[in-house]
């Protein structure tokens, strides 16, 4: 075998094995679809109401509960810490009165989520029950969703976190985007999200999660009868987190 033949044979071999492996990976990556009739999520539309008049300014129980439940990574540095839910202090003037409020912020689970629109691999998507969720096994870490989110609600796992308080939930590894998933795993089995449970335990009872499609639900009563606000409604993203007293 001369040099030319050798190169041809090895090249052909590498090409065949390489493309075969690649084709196999692509074929095996295509997901299994669930038929609509089997899908228990259809028909629901989860939403949240946060009553700022009940929320205690110095309380951070919901933040701690969220971190512990979901193993949200924390490194003690604002630049790389993740907070699926965070509390911010806002200040301004209404008329001549100075206004100061503490507002819990989290993913708004928009009905028109810009993060899902821009995701090149559909790793971020809206479930049939309205929850916007990230598939950590599919995300390629391009961070386009962070650019697209107008609420600064999406973060990125910039580094590994060795803490693993809840071993039933996945440990966070670096390289993928993150955001609040409304504790979908808990809602799916009839439990309330960790932040709601913590808020009830501390006695404030300021957070409520419910089905916006259910005409007799408490959340529907509040959003249709009381003066609720959503953050930057003007953007047309249709957020599903409502605030009382904002």
């Amino acid at each position, binding site marked *: 075998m001369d040099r030319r033949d050798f190169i041809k044979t090895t090249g052909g071999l590498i090409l065949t094995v390489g493309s075969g492996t690649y084709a196999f990976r692509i074929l095996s*990556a295509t997901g299994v679809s669930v038929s609509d009739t089997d899908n228990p999520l259809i028909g629901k539309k989860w939403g949240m109401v946060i009553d700022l008049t009940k929320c205690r300014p110095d309380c951070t129980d919901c933040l701690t509960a969220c971190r512990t439940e979901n193993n949200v990574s924390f490194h003690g540095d604002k630049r790389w810490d993740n907070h699926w839910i965070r509390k*911010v202090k806002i200040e301004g003037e209404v008329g001549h009165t100075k206004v100061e409020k503490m507002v819990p912020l989290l993913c708004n689970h928009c009905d028109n989520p810009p993060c899902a629109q821009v995701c090149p691999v559909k790793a971020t998507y809206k479930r049939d029950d309205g929850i916007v969720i990230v598939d950590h096994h599919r995300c*390629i870490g391009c961070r386009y969703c962070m*650019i697209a989110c107008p609420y600064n609600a999406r973060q990125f796992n910039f580094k590994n976190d060795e803490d693993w308080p809840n071993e039933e939930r996945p440990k966070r590894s670096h390289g993928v985007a993150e955001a609040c998933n409304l504790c979908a795993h808990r809602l799916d089995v009839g439990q309330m999200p960790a932040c709601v449970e913590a808020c009830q335990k501390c006695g404030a009872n300021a957070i409520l999660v419910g089905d916006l499609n259910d005409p007799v639900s408490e959340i529907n009563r509040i959003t249709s009868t009381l003066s609720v606000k959503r953050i930057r409604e003007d953007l047309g993203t249709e957020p599903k987190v409502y605030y009382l007293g904002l």
Partner: protein
Amino acid sequence: MDLKFDSIEGDSTQYRLMMITFASFAIAGFIATWYVIEHGLWVTGMNNRVPWGLQIVMAVYYIGLSAGSLVISGLYGVFGKLEYKPFARIAVYLATLFLIAGLLSILTDQGRIDRVFVEPFVYFNLQSMFSINPILYIGHILICLLYLWALFYERKKLTSVVATLAFGWAFCVHTGTGAIFGFGARVLYESPLLPASFVAAAMASGTALMILMIVGLFRITKRRLDDELIIWLGRFLAICLLVVVYFMFVENAYRAYVVELRDAAMYYLFGGLHSLFFWVGLIVIGCFIPIFLLFYRKTGKTVRGIVIASALVVFGVLCERYVIVLPGLTHPPELFPGMEITESVLQEGIASYSLSFLEILQALGVFGVIGFLFGWGLKYLKLLPTEARILKHYETTEITSKEK
């Protein structure tokens, strides 16, 4: 008159040194990227508020350079300007390399590089600019390779068809890249003008770089080059620059005029280090001085003047790419109009960004890879003509090793 294409000898000490330098850059970039993959992207200094950095700036820059190179080849392939036929091969080769550099820059910036080769093709999202653009990029590379083949084998009909296709495709590529930002939700990104101004800046930077490459290569390898060819390219560059300035003016005037965008406009124009890049790097060094040099009779008609102007444009457009990407990120999204966030566990206000050593190494690495491929191409492909003169007709022949 025959147009002869030739490769370089490639056995000089300078050539070897150049190749060793490029290879060292590539290796350094590879090690830096491996370190980033291993430890996470935080080591590059990017963070939750500024999730894109130098690699995205460089990706956009390289993709732009690729356009301009194609424009030069299109002068012959599309518009039939025979006097530019000598540069067609090198221009298409460079266009291919720059696009590869753009893709490499994006690739090395991903959080999970291992998934990049499978997921985007399996879960294609037609609504995402990040899904549409890779298709445009890969298509662009394939068209460039076909174009190169047509040029090498002197398929005249195919050349003109592929050249036209490549020309149109390049417009889509650069409009698409501009749309990644222009169709975004950030105040300083969102602009329907951005894709168009992106194309203009791409043509300016690409033409400028081609002028530098052509003059440099012809001088170093002691080949004859008619000044008129470069002077015409200089004029073309000047027009591209005027278009760039026009788009810049309209975009910024709009932001400064509309009340709700005024704060963002002030931040962009006078808000920090990026404003220095905008005014000094882009407007003065990258546009005004080159426009003066190119239109002023004494410098605009000399190769030296045009080369200086081109070098300034290449630098200026790099600054332009920086001010497209970074200020849009460091400027905060407005969550509560009329109110201010004064306390938070995250960075909420204006964020800061500085280049990190690892990012620079990664960028150098990509530069090293295409530099090496460029050097390889000069030695093993017949890319360069023996001379470039203004003639009516060319018959192309390639120098065989016996003739040398």
